[in-house]
């Protein structure tokens, strides 16, 4: 009897837990969709407020990157195996230089912005990570597929990668960064120099 009651209680708990999990995941999917729209809106709002110069655009994009993107994670990814070979001090310096570089390079691209809208098509929630599939359309363009890789394991979701028409930002930068590192025998000085020369913010 006791056994049966315990079993029932366990089953009930399991069922409840199950439904609870299901519910929270459904909410998470809607949240992720809203999160991506929020990132896009924030970028567009900040960038449209900025002066129409490249340094101003870079400065406007930087806080958006810091708030919504997993920049330390991206920095680690783009260095590949070389990340572990540099000192903690160099890692910290590299993260900062990388953020400034990304803000500068991608801030400039917003000058082509002419009213395109982002539409969330599908969310694939895998618990700790998720992919949000969106389409950017409007303006003069034909439209583009943009997929957002989200790290949703922390307190707040963070963007880990963006793929435009299947072209990954993280993987493309990883190829070029590791290529420079390999050419200089794993010494990060040259790469840091190039990043700084292309940065318009500090």
């Amino acid at each position, binding site marked *: 009897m006791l056994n049966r009651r315990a079993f029932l209680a366990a089953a009930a708990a399991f069922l409840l837990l199950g439904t609870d999990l299901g519910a929270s995941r459904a909410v998470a999917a809607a949240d992720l969709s809203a999160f991506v729209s929020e990132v896009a809106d924030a970028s567009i709002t900040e960038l449209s407020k900025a002066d129409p110069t490249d340094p101003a655009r870079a400065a406007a994009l930087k806080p958006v990157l810091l708030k919504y993107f997993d920049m330390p994670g991206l920095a680690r990814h783009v260095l590949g195996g070389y990340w572990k070979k540099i000192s903690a001090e160099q890692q910290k310096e590299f993260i900062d230089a990388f953020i400034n570089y990304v803000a500068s390079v991608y801030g*400039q691209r917003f000058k082509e912005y002419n009213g395109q809208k982002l539409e969330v*098509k599908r969310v694939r929630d895998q618990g700790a990570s998720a992919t949000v599939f969106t389409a950017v359309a409007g303006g003069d363009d034909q439209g583009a597929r943009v997929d957002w890789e989200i790290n949703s394991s922390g307190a707040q979701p963070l963007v880990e990668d963006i793929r435009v028409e299947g072209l990954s930002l993280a993987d493309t930068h990883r190829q070029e960064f590791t290529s420079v590192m390999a050419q200089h025998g794993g010494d990060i000085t040259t790469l840091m120099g190039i990043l700084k020369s292309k940065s318009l913010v500090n």
Partner: protein
Amino acid sequence: MNFKLRFDRMVLATGAVAATLLMSGCATPPDPTDEAAVEAYNEANDPLEPMNRYFFEINHVLDELVLKPFAGYYHTALPQFAQDGVRNALRNLHSPTIFANDMFQGSLDRGGVTAGRFFINSTIGLAGLFDVADSFGLKYHDEDFGQTLGTYKVGEGPYLMLPVLGPSNPRDLTGHVVDYALDPLTWVGYIYNVGWINTIRGGLEGLDTRARNMQAIEELQKGSVDFYATIRSLYRQHRNDAIRNGEDPNDVISQGITTEDQIPSDGKDAPTVFLLPTAKAPDTGSAPQGQVSEAN
């Protein structure tokens, strides 16, 4: 005759240069104890890097001297509708090879779209100058034999930077040769001794693509840390995306069948999917909602 002789000499000379470069062009593999360098070397999959970089530089100079200025004139001199007309006509000429590759990949739906587009655009669309089929919902997509090989799981092989032709790999290079042989215009040129039409077509294609991407290429180059490595990575990612027809890599079970087709996002009424090798792949043409696969 004289021209042919000169051309043959040029081919010989290019061949000799390529052979010399190939011998000296192999990258030195990294020290096997240097894990980071080994990882970078393997990820790059570019054992001929020194030779490839050499041709990349040559192509870059050719681009600056010839292609870019001409593409600039083309872009500024021709009104947008004329440029679109040129592109539509060029795309229409590719229809037979696209159709053949749709069939090789077992994509009957996409093949139907290609055939429909070809007939509509060649007639109502005035020899392909107007993309009328697009407004009937028959959207353009690209296919080539390199992609067909990719769908049969043929590996890309090491990266190649070809003189004039640009980035490639053994799989895609093989694809080019097969597509060239599949193209009716190749045989028209050969039989009627009008090979120049294909030269002009190739030139126009280069010009059109360059003109359309003028700003994108400039910004890419400006922001890039190592432009050669950027192009290498983008080429590879673009080809992989094209092979999947723009579908999400994690969703693709086999060509044309995605998990989307099996498990609807609302979790209800899972449709029956017959995974027979010859069965018509469900919903191939229209990529999962919202995946704008315009150029795949």
